């Protein structure tokens, strides 16, 4: 039963993660595992893993002693009963001791200890009657007792699950109890002289009751099938493989035992009492085996948590490890930037807490050794049902985060530096272009105009003409000098000197676009220029193509991101048509580490959105 491996792995991880577990997860019970306190084989103590064997030996012995009179004459019957008892008790005590599944374990132990009652028909008096009652229902006592003990616990989350248990109790024990009032023991193949609480010995009532009881068993079997299917569907990815054997054998058990009882009740002559007990016992054993297989599989799956631990803890390796261990391709770990308290993914890109938490995925904060949040684990929504795996992973992720976070932060810084560099490059390039434009539109034209005025001397005839020509020429040359001086100043475009908002409003006015501007007053630093040119290009596009009645211009910043949005109510369809330089705009935004979106359904206006991470000026 994997006793050599599982306690070490399971308890080891469990204890390890205790100090770092996140508050949303239930902490495992106080551990008495081998790493906590005394070494496992301390003198004078029974090793926990030997207790199930001891219990099995005792219960097996009792069962064999109980069946002593027929031990030789009915070998299959007696051995099967002993096997079922031993199997159930071993499994139940293992669950209690190693898995801390106290209630489930107790249910199996109880069912195992009750099982030998089916052999009581070899004794006179009330023996056959008890054997009849238990033989009909003992297999179902397992879920009944289990269910009643655990009733209302979070594991039985659905009303249908809670309904299944009383229904089980009613249909199994209730049916055999009621049926016993209308039959004689010899009708079901029991000794005729046995004590029996018959009220009315009516074959008709007995047949009717039998049919009802059989229907009840069918209902239980199909109900169980439906529950199992739902459990499989809703199982977290980490558990799916592990619970499969239990589910399969559970369904086999449900249909198998209900079939046996149906035959036994409707045609008692076909199946003798002991044969019924043997077959149902076999089905009960398969259920126990299914559970055992599930436990082993779960242990093996849990063992991967350690087994696949990456040696080099880069953000990529950690991401791959989590996807692997959680069996979930959408799983990812986002590192908390200690400085900005933003989130960073494995590629060093910034993410936003609000956006991430709004998705429907499961998330849990991972805490460092000092208890502060250091990362955010995002995974499949069903993973929230697997508290055990999460608890065992929390500590490991905490350690992995401490290692990988530095690299992720470094990457993010590098990306930011790169973005800053490109932003500066842009602003240099734009300054150069602006210089050329100013030169061309300003001083060059002024001098050309002066040259044109020079011709006035040739046309002049009176001294007044000469005087006027000289005055004009002088004014132009002075203006040219001023323009040369202003060329030497300022890297910022002159229109931005009074701020982004007036500049944007001026562009809109020049393009004759009715605009609603909501532009932040915050200083956008070196990004002001690229943001301004982005808006100007976008508005030029609107002017040229959109035929809009109104344009909404929005620039906002939260200190970490700058959000730009330009919406118009024009003809849309920008993606379909050639829409001036959209590719270039996207390229420039992405170069700055930002994101660029355009949505332009035909006839419904165009919305351009860009978000740029703020960079250090």
């Amino acid at each position: 039963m994997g006793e050599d491996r599982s306690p070490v792995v399971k308890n080891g991880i469990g204890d390890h993660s205790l100090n770092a577990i996140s508050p949303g997860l239930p902490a495992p019970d106080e551990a008495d595992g081998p790493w906590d306190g005394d070494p496992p084989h301390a003198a004078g103590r029974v090793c926990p893993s030997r207790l199930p064997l001891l219990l099995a030996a005792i219960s097996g012995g009792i069962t064999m002693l109980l069946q002593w009179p027929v031990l030789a004459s009915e070998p299959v019957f007696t051995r099967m009963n002993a096997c079922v008892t031993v199997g159930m008790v071993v499994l139940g005590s293992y669950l209690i001791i190693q898995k801390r599944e106290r209630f489930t374990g107790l249910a199996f132990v109880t069912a195992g200890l009750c099982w030998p009652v089916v052999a009581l028909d070899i004794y006179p008096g009330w023996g056959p009657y008890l054997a009849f009652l238990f033989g009909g229902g003992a297999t179902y006592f397992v879920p009944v007792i289990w269910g009643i003990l655990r009733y209302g616990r979070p594991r039985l989350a659905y009303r249908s699950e809670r309904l299944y248990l009383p229904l089980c109790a009613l249909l199994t024990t209730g049916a055999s109890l009621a049926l016993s009032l209308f039959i004689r023991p010899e009708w079901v193949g029991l000794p005729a002289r046995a004590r029996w609480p018959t009220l009315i010995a009516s074959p008709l009532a007995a047949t009717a009751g039998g049919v009802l009881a059989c229907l009840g068993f069918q209902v239980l079997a199909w109900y169980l099938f439906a529950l199992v299917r739902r459990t499989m569907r809703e199982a977290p990815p980490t558990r799916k493989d592990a619970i499969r054997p239990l589910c399969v054998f559970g369904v086999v058990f449900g249909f198998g035992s209900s079939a046996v009882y149906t035959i036994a009740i409707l045609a008692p002559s076909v199946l003798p009492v002991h044969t019924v007990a043997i077959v149902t016992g076999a089905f009960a054993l398969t259920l126990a085996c299914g559970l055992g297989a599930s436990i082993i599989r779960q242990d093996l799956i849990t063992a991967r948590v350690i087994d696949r631990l990456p040696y080099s803890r880069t953000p990529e390796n950690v991401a791959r490890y989590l996807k692997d261990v959680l069996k979930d391709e959408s799983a990812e770990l986002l590192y908390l930037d200690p400085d900005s308290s933003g989130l960073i993914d494995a590629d060093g890109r910034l993410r936003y807490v609000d956006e991430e938490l709004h998705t429907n995925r499961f998330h849990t904060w991972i805490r460092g050794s000092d208890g502060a949040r250091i990362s955010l684990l995002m995974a499949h929504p069903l993973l929230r049902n697997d508290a055990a795996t999460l608890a065992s992973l929390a500590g490991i992720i905490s350690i992995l985060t401490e290692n990988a976070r530095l690299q992720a932060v470094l990457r993010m810084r590098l990306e930011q530096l790169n973005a800053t560099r490109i932003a500066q490059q842009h602003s240099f390039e734009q300054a150069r272009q602006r210089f050329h434009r100013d030169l061309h539109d300003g001083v060059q034209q002024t001098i050309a105009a002066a040259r044109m005025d020079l011709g006035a001397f040739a046309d002049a005839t009176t001294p007044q003409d000469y005087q006027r020509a000289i005055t004009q020429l002088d004014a132009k040359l002075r203006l040219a000098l001023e323009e040369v001086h202003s060329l030497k100043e300022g890297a910022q475009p002159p229109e931005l000197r009074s701020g982004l908002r007036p500049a944007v409003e001026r562009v809109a006015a020049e393009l004759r676009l009715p605009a609603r501007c909501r532009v932040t007053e915050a200083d956008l630093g070196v990004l002001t220029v690229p943001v301004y040119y982005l808006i100007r290009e976008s508005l030029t596009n609107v002017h040229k193509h959109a035929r809009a009645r109104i344009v909404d211009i929005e620039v906002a910043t939260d200190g970490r991101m700058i959000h730009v949005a330009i919406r118009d109510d024009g003809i849309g369809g920008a993606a379909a048509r050639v829409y001036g330089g959209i590719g270039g705009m996207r390229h420039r935004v992405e170069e700055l580490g930002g994101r660029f979106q355009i949505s332009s359904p035909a006839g419904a206006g165009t919305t351009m959105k860009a978000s740029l991470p703020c960079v250090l000026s």
Partner: protein
Amino acid sequence: MRVVVVDDNDVWRPSLVAALASGGITVVAETSDGMELLMLLPSLGPEPIDIAVLDLRLPPTWSDEGIQLARELRRRYQELGVIILSGYERDVQLHHATQALSHLGGHGGMGYLFKDRTSRSSLRSAIHRVATGRLVVDPLFSQQATAEYRDQHSATKDFSDREVEVLDLLVQGLTNKEIADTLYLSIPAVERHLTKIFRQLLPAEISGESSVDTRRENRRVLTVLEWLRRTGHLT
């Protein structure tokens, strides 16, 4: 002569208007952008406009609104002469010039000049040449085009050096007499060169002396276009 002027530079425009006015040219409208001019047009009276002097770059986007405006004006006045007067930018001008020369529509004269290479006298003479339906391109273009053509076709001897000189002057919109005066040739000599040039550059039905094709009237314009096309400045 009735002229409209569109230029957004408030320093240059008054100088330009003054230069035209002092040469006896009537400026019937001066505006700083094309929309304004188009709105003014109905109020300018029934007589046709002879020449539009337009800046290449105009509001609102300062790209090639001048050419767009010229196209619109040509649609309204088929015979209108257009002069695009632009600031000098070496890289992009050829593109705009070829656009202007090849796709304007209508059949008036056409000029493409640079503000800082134009004086009062050269501007006036260009205006008069364009008004008679001729093509005037800044000599810089033809010089540049010729230089490039020679670099690329050094092996082929389609034209003699003298013929290239004649072509250059033809591109600048000079008449036969002006070409003859500039190169110190006799007029018949210039005509001989031109005939050879036409034959080289134009299809036989247009270039031949006996041709009755109506396009024969436009031989000079077609030759300039073909020359610019061959030198890669017209696509």
